């Protein structure tokens, strides 16, 4: 009756592929919208037309990217229902609200104004057009806010309570849901990361022009603004990454243990593994390079707080499984006789660990008769894959610092007005473009793989969440998505490349000292 392991795995693969793919486009939308707003602000304040050309040019690239972001977002809005049926039932009362509010408050704003942003240049005054651009930026950022409130709930459920009569989580405090500290740090971390990605994108494209000595004036101004934008955004990402980690020590210790590949609880302050080769099977690091003390200090912001290691967490999980079993049994009794007050009392006493009993059900369908070996298996399952999470996290951090260093140099060179002479640096900027994309994806992998085996941490295990589809359906849909998405990305990269080669709407070769003339005069003249 339950979804088989293969179906659950295929559903997870499909979700992972579609969400990681969606997230190739979303950060550029979020970040570039803000950067374009800043550029257009300069245009409105100074009246220099080159800044309008810049806003239009980056806007053109924005639109190519935006289309795919919107298209792949459609999948996400419905995939909870199509593939995670029980999850949707179980958390819909809480989780559906931020998703709906995202549509009401953010997505409508962004999508309605994006049309005016591109087609309204002639029909709107400068001030009004600037307002429209800011609304697009605000809308895309608010989108991220509500999605991350929803995700924050999965990571650190707060503001909800399991209702035994409807067998689902029900909202108990809306304020706790939206002011969830996990959602807060995630939101700022994610949007700032999006700004960084957009900044690298603009730097890379500008560098490409500078290397070819095309559209130099436009490219140098863009490079300058993006460098500064990226510098501050990188600082914000790192600060918030730190804040996220600090929060997670208390909220999701298994994720932290996996991120740091900490098998044993060390004496505080714990060391920090810079490089490690953890083995899940042997439950130890085959090799590691670590620095003493730093890890504990960074994660707990204190000298005397230990970070629990994997073995300690498994022992805790074992206790919670045993504590959760009576809650699940009481719940089953309540399903049969809703008026059973004894069962209700038992349920209330043990409800905080009921998720662990759900987890055990995978290995012992009748939890009342679970053997110690089955409990042990479930307890070991509460630790996410240490190698995957460790490396996703560490690469993300190393890449993040690389980009910070890049922006320090970029800002310096741009302020010295020497960036166009340093061809090695321009070439580096170009190659750096892959880095932010990898980094944001690694961030998702850290957050989501680190939460396993749960969809809602500590409450609803992943295996129970999936829809009961057949394997054939899953293979069909997975193949369809992969095929369709592959075609899309080929087209999008092709068009993006073409738009970049074509360049802004000013005449190539001639440059922007002639900008006093409207651009169409230039184009008409060269045609």
């Amino acid at each position, binding site marked *: 009756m339950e979804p088989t392991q293969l179906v659950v795995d295929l559903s997870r693969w499909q979700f992972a592929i579609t969400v990681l793919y969606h997230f190739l486009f979303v950060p550029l939308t979020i970040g570039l919208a*803000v*950067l374009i*707003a*800043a*550029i257009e*602000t*300069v245009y409105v*304040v*100074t009246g*220099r037309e080159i*800044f309008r050309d810049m806003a239009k040019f980056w806007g053109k690239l924005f639109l190519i990217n935006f289309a795919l972001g919107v298209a792949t977002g459609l999948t996400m809005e419905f995939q909870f229902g199509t593939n995670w049926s029980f999850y949707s039932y179980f958390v819909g009362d809480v989780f559906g609200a931020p998703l709906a509010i995202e549509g009401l408050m953010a997505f409508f704003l962004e999508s309605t104004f994006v049309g005016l942003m591109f087609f309204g240049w002639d029909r709107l005054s400068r001030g009004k057009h600037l307002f429209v651009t800011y609304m697009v930026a605000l809308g895309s*950022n608010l989108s991220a*806010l509500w999605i991350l409130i929803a995700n924050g709930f999965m990571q650190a459920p707060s503001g909800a309570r399991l209702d035994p009569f409807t067998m689902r989580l029900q909202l108990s405090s809306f*304020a706790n849901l*939206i*002011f969830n*500290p996990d959602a*807060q*740090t995630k*939101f*700022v971390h994610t*949007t*700032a990361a999006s*700004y960084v990605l957009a900044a690298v994108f603009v730097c890379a494209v500008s560098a490409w022009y500078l290397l070819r*000595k095309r559209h*130099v004036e436009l490219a*140098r*101004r863009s490079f*300058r*603004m993006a*460098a*500064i*934008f990226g510098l*501050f*955004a990188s600082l*914000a990402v790192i600060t*918030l990454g730190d*804040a996220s980690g600090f929060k997670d020590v208390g909220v999701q210790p298994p994720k932290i243990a996996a991120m740091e590949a900490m098998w044993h609880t060390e004496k505080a302050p714990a060391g920090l593994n810079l490089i490690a080769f953890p083995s899940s099977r042997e439950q130890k690091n085959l090799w590691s390079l670590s620095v003493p003390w730093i890890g504990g200090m960074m994660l707990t912001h204190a000298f005397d707080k230990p970070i629990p290691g994997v073995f300690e967490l498994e022992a805790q999980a074992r206790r919670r499984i045993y504590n959760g079993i009576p809650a699940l049994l009481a719940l089953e009794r309540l399903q049969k006789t809703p008026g059973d007050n004894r069962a209700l009392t038992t349920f209330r006493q043990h409800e905080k660990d009921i998720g662990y009993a759900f987890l055990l059900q995978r290995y012992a369908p009748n939890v009342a008769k679970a053997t110690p070996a089955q409990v042990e298996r479930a307890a070991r399952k509460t630790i996410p894959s240490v190698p995957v999470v460790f490396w996703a996290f560490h690469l993300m951090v190393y890449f993040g610092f690389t980009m910070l260093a890049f922006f320090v140099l970029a800002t310096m060179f*741009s302020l010295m*007005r020497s960036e*166009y002479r340093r061809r090695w640096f321009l070439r580096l900027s170009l190659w750096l473009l892959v880095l932010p994309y990898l980094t944001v994806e690694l961030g998702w992998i850290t957050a989501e793989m680190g939460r396993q085996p749960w969809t809602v941490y500590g409450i609803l295990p992943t295996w129970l969440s999936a829809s009961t589809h057949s394997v054939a359906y899953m293979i069909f849909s997975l193949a369809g998505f992969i095929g369709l998405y592959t075609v899309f990305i080929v087209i999008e990269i092709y068009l993006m490349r073409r738009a970049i080669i074509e360049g802004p709407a000013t005449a190539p070769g001639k440059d922007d000292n002639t900008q006093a003339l409207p651009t169409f005069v230039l184009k008409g003249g060269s045609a």
Partner: protein
Amino acid sequence: MTTSELLRYAGWFALALLALAGAAILSYWAPWYFAWVVGTVMIILITAFAGALYERQAREQGAHGEDPLK
């Protein structure tokens, strides 16, 4: 001062008070959301300033007859 002007100032004043109250509430309940509001506005302003600074630098350099491309 005319009545309409007075009303306008009163309106702006009310808006400022509202913003202050909002900031106070937000910073208490949601320090990171508050940080985002302040931080993003700041990043946009600094970025815009960097763009304007470029214009100034270009003018000054142009006065000295330097052409970056040659």
